[in-house]
């Protein structure tokens, strides 16, 4: 028999369309530019000058670059000559992995093994896969514990199977999805014992933890501006003196031939300003974010008692602003959609292929099954996060999880 047609609740829906101010809980993806960085960049954008030119306009631009370089170097325990500007974190990872690998096999063809943790960002993992598929590398995965941690023992074991064959080691400073902090000092020291180049993607750690090239003795560190309040489009590879990666970009020979390309002076200046601000208040900001984050965890658990916190326990072993949950019986992308409709922005934390979320490789590496990996959300705080953001999530998450569970049945 023909059915009755339900009313489409036009008036109520129209109201819901006027969203409250956005509650942004995805600072790990990117974070608003610090006002000082924005101002510095805007000012610099009005100037013209190629930092490689020999005339006065070029020298002015060059001075901005070199002052920025010195600021960034000092903040991260590096010499100015150890700072190589790139277009961001991905490019810096590519330069480190590919460049160091090529240099190592050129020096000794046996040094083909690349050791990288199973939880690295795709900018590292995909490089390693490419090197294995096209450049004769042997990709060796470093297993992680249930919290996503790489133990020095695991690294030692991996090296020990054949130390003479290891080309490069790469372990990220802190994980972008679950926030777990790796024991970089010990891992780098271990690599140094065997004289194997050690690279760490410090992109997430740079604003929150004491990232230092000198202190760790690492060969290379990746940092990027847009995670700490600078602009998208600029980053750096901190490259220890004595490391000579084969360049990825050839051209005008900028950055001591290591990375050719006209320098983005306004972005570099803004990068330095962001680094200065972030480093200056790093400890206070980490404390502030940790308190907010701990309350976020408490509120989510209160609303959804069976939510599982993934990653290291909150404390020094975890990024201060990071929270990551699996919600049993839900699909993360349904949850994300429901929260998005309520004006709350977060992330499933996994790579997207054509907008279709894949289960997080980080969670899978930590031993989660596919359902748990698919049913997860990451909430990350930043320099402008407030208690009201946490409260908004606390108020919305219960209903969102309930609906997402219904949708999954």
């Amino acid at each position, binding site marked *: 028999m*023909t059915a009755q*047609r339900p009313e489409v609740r036009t008036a109520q829906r129209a109201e*819901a369309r006027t969203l409250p101010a956005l509650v942004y809980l995805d600072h790990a993806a990117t974070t608003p530019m610090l006002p000082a960085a924005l101002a510095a960049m805007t000012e610099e954008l009005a100037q013209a000058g190629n930092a490689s030119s020999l005339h006065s306009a070029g020298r002015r631009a060059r001075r901005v670059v070199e002052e920025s370089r010195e600021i960034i170097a000092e903040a991260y325990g590096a010499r100015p000559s150890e700072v190589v500007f790139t277009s961001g974190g991905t490019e810096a990872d590519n330069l480190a992995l590919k460049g160091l690998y090529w240099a190592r096999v050129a020096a000794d063809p046996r040094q083909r093994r690349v050791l990288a943790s199973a939880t690295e960002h795709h900018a590292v993992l995909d490089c390693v896969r490419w090197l294995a598929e096209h450049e004769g590398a042997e990709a060796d995965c470093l297993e992680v514990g249930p919290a996503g941690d790489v133990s020095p023992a695991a690294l030692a074991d991996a090296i020990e199977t054949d130390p003479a064959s290891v080309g490069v080691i790469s372990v990220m400073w802190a994980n972008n999805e679950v926030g777990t902090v790796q024991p970089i000092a010990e891992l780098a020291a271990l690599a140094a014992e065997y004289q194997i180049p050690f690279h760490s993607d410090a992109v997430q750690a740079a604003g929150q933890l004491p990232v230092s090239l000198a202190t760790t003795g690492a060969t290379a560190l990746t940092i990027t501006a847009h995670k700490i309040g600078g602009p998208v489009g600029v980053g750096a590879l901190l490259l220890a003196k004595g490391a000579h990666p084969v360049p990825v970009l050839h051209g005008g020979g900028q950055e001591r031939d290591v990375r050719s390309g006209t320098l983005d002076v306004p972005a570099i200046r803004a990068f330095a300003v962001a680094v200065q601000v972030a480093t200056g208040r790093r400890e206070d900001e980490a404390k502030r974010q940790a308190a907010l984050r701990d309350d976020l965890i408490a509120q989510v658990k209160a609303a959804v008692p069976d939510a599982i916190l993934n990653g290291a326990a909150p404390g020094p072993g975890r990024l201060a602003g990071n929270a990551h949950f699996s919600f049993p019986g839900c699909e993360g992308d349904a949850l994300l959609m429901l929260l998005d409709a309520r004006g709350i922005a977060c992330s499933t934390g996994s790579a997207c292929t054509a*907008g279709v979320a894949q289960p997080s490789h980080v969670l899978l590496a930590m031993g989660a099954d596919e359902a748990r990996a698919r049913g997860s959300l990451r909430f990350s705080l930043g320099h402008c996060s407030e208690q009201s953001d946490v409260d908004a999530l606390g108020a919305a998450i219960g209903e969102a999880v309930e609906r997402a569970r219904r949708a999954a049945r």
Partner: protein
Amino acid sequence: MSGGVDSAVAAARAAEAGHDVTGVHLALSRNPSSYRTGARGCCTLEDARDARRAADVIGIPFYVWDMADRFHADVVADFVAEYARGHTPNPCLRCNEKIKFAAVLDRAVALGFDAVCTGHHARLEPVPGAPGSTRLVRSVDPAKDQSYVLGVLTADQLSRAMFPLGDTTKDQVRKEAAERGLGVADKPDSHDVCFIADGDTSGFLRRHLGSAPGDIVEADGTVIGTHDGSYGFTIGQRKGLHIDRPAGDGRPRFVLSIEPVSRTVTVGPAEALDVFEIEASRPVWSGCAPPAGPLPCEVQLRAHSDVHPAVCEPDGDGGVRITLREPARGIAPGQAAVFYDGDAVLGSATISRAS
């Protein structure tokens, strides 16, 4: 939102009418290719991008829902299985029945939505004398009318559907897309089977079903040729028979029946294709009460074909028997029989036998 012009304009109209619209692109391919090549195939990454851009212009949220596994199980696997049985499936029907107005609708309703809106060319109107009810009606554009592939939907599914384009011709839809600044205004329509991008259905089936050689016979059993797989044939087919000996009477032969177990394809003259009675199963009555006795109506037996005056009545076994006033040809088991009263859809059933 497939990335095509119809769904883009439908979404725009729904948003303009004041509904709270969210655009969803269905990722249906397990291996989406990057670019659309011409009019074949669908759901490439480029299509997803086109859909996203249309949603941007309209100003609505946009997501991609991964239905690739369900689509493969319910539509692609069913398509292959039907051919293996000697039937001729219509995957668009299965997709509407199992994916768009089932899997997608169920998920949408659970997430708090009220209805699924698509760019199908069809109309929804109340049944005369029953205000608040809904039945499916042909589009005003007879060449583009898609009520046939929607005829498999139940009344419940129709009550949660919206088809904003039914009152507009295709040409007008394209004009409107251009006026609205939707970049897909000139994108060619996709046609044929959306998951067979190169249009080579035989090749696709051969890859899935392998080589299954058998005989081509005349009605009296005389073997007159061989074939490589009975799935390469459909009832009423004339071309591609590869028969060496001409028919005794010199007239063209047509495929009369396909028997997949013995892998036999029977051919014969055109008149042998005439069908007066059709048995159909799993009837769905969305536009009227299920008939208790004979129901005079018009029946459409293939997509994009004419209707046949007929009488439809229950066969006492859950199915229906359709008696045609004039014989029809090329009626293939697996296709849908959709019953019309003028332009309105009464219901549908799946053809199981024709004689």
